[in-house]
């Protein structure tokens, strides 16, 4: 299985501010009633978007200026809460191809990486700088560069962090581990043979 090597993601950005944005907000539970991931994009931040509208405002995802953005900017501990892969799926189905946040919850990060959705980290001040530039010029092109570990925008750039195992998986096109895991099946047999609880039959 050959996978796309994800070295760069370029496109416009949108900033969804806040820390501890949990998976229930990213995709509320009622959208989990499905047997495929198709159609999840519509549910992305559904309740937040509705609440923003009801309060007389507009959520950044509904702001026409940011329509078609490919890079989602956010705060610390993004994706905390449940293990629902529906969360990164909804982000991707909505059209995002990378997330830039201060930090991520563990399970969300792993799920996103497995889907080929780079989740890179940047310092708060840097995210704020980029967000300000995007707000001033929504058409501004951003580039998340996983090779140089840099986010470039206009003529400026800020450094990015990304766990090496994830970076390696993305840039070398092995973010979906299944092929490699299947190759290990002989060793799996050997290891399981040493574990008595796997031999029990009921």
């Amino acid at each position, binding site marked *: 299985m050959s996978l796309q090597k994800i070295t760069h993601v370029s496109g416009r950005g949108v900033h969804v501010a806040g820390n501890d944005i949990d998976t229930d907000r990213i995709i509320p539970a009622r959208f989990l009633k499905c047997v495929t991931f198709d159609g999840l994009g519509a549910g992305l931040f559904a309740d937040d978007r509705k609440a923003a509208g009801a309060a007389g405002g507009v959520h950044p995802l509904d702001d026409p200026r940011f329509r078609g953005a490919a890079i989602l900017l956010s705060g610390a501990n993004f994706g*905390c809460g449940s293990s629902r892969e*529906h969360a990164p799926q909804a982000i991707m189905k909505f059209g995002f191809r990378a997330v830039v946040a201060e930090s991520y*919850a563990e399970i969300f990060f792993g799920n996103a990486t497995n889907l080929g959705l780079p989740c890179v980290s940047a310092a708060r001040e840097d995210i704020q700088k980029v967000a300000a530039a995007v707000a001033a010029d929504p058409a501004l092109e951003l580039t998340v560069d996983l090779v140089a570990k840099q986010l470039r925008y206009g003529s400026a750039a800020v450094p990015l962090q990304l766990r090496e195992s994830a970076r390696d998986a993305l840039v070398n096109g092995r973010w979906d581990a299944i092929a490699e895991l299947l190759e290990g099946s002989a060793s*799996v047999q050997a290891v399981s043979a040493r574990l008595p*609880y796997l031999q029990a039959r*009921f």
Partner: protein
Amino acid sequence: MAKSLFQKVWDAHTVRTLANGQTQLLIGTHLIHEVTSPQAFGMLRDLGLKVAMPHRTFATVDHIVPTDQRTEPFSDPLADEMIKTLRRNCAEHGITYFDLNSGRQGIVHMVGPEQGITQPGTTIACGDSHTSTHGAFGAVALGIGTTQIRDVLATQTIALGRLKVRRINVTGRLAPGVYAKDVILHLIRVLGVNGGTGYAYEYGGEVFDRFSMEERMTVCNMSIEGGARVGYVNPDETTFAYLKGRPYVPKGAAWDEAVARWRAVASDPGCTYDDVVTIRGEDIPPTVTWGINPGQGISIAENIPAPADAKSPDERASIEEALAYMKLQPGAPLKGTKIDVAFLGSCTNARLSDFKEVARHLKGRRVAPGVKAIAVPGSQIVSQVCAELGIDRVFRDAGFEWREAGCSMCLAMNPDKLVGDQLCASSSNRNFKGRQGSPTGRTLLMSPVMVAAAAVTGAVADAREVFGVTP
């Protein structure tokens, strides 16, 4: 060299190192449910693969099942499609499935322990973040996403980076009226909702030594709310006594061998941890959340924080956001705040000991007028034992609705939901915005006995005062 349980289990289940530096880790036990598995089976089918170890895969249905009337088809066609899909996938792949008519159905994190599927020294994965619950038995139990469910189905392994281990000691004793739920709410308050990122939490100390398995499960369950993907307690006599005689546990000579192995898997004295935290049991108060994440908790005696109390601009912003959503007054006592709903259930606190303890206090009392109170056993077994002991009657007589086993109002993927901005005293584990089914619904997390105190008084209350528990 002295090793922690985590290290021993990790090493014993390591298949090999992958090209990106992660470990291919063998998953001995795979638990699945209806919400996160259908897409994984779809992927498996697309790749033309089979389930590698169907005999190590166990399924039940919990999130979407109605807790009032259970005749099929369910009134919600999507829920109905989900249960049928699970049934079909299990039948097609030869997977053990605890269905509604089995008498053993329930929340997946209750079914594993009840059946003795959850055992010390094993690796367990489930497409659900509260899989950390199973760590109470000394297992390394991980919540995974759907693509990883596919990986486990197809290969019985996942790719994972090794976690660090933080030892958390809770010393001394808990005060009367303080429960396991308070311990974990307090720990998350102290260590932060992302304090555990990258860590497995090993819980120990005298308080855990004395805890029952059910209390240990309550704490391990919420490890993920503190950012830790794994939480565990070393196995001991309490663990073995709980497991003995359960359906999937070895019998006869094999039992003795298993116990010997389980004893040996516990952390060695003198092993090193990446971090150690010690908390005095005496310092833990009955804790209630007032905000929109599980770390926003206070002692029942404290006042609701004000933005001015914040130690950082970040904290200030999160207090402001939480107060606005929760419609609570900064600086006011939380105690006395009127509630609309009392929910007793979820994989954190819907075990027999929870209902027993509440029933002890609830006997002869009535739910306050205007409060909707529901009690939802976490499994059919709990439900059956409660019926045998007459516990269901105590709840019904008090004015609680007594329901069938499932996740219910913990996340409201079933008909049990908050309405509008109702305020709910809840024994569950998440108080996120919209968590209980209404986008403006509000959740206060607390122990089951505190939920009961709120139910009978109609407001957030100190259960020790309501039920006359003296320090």
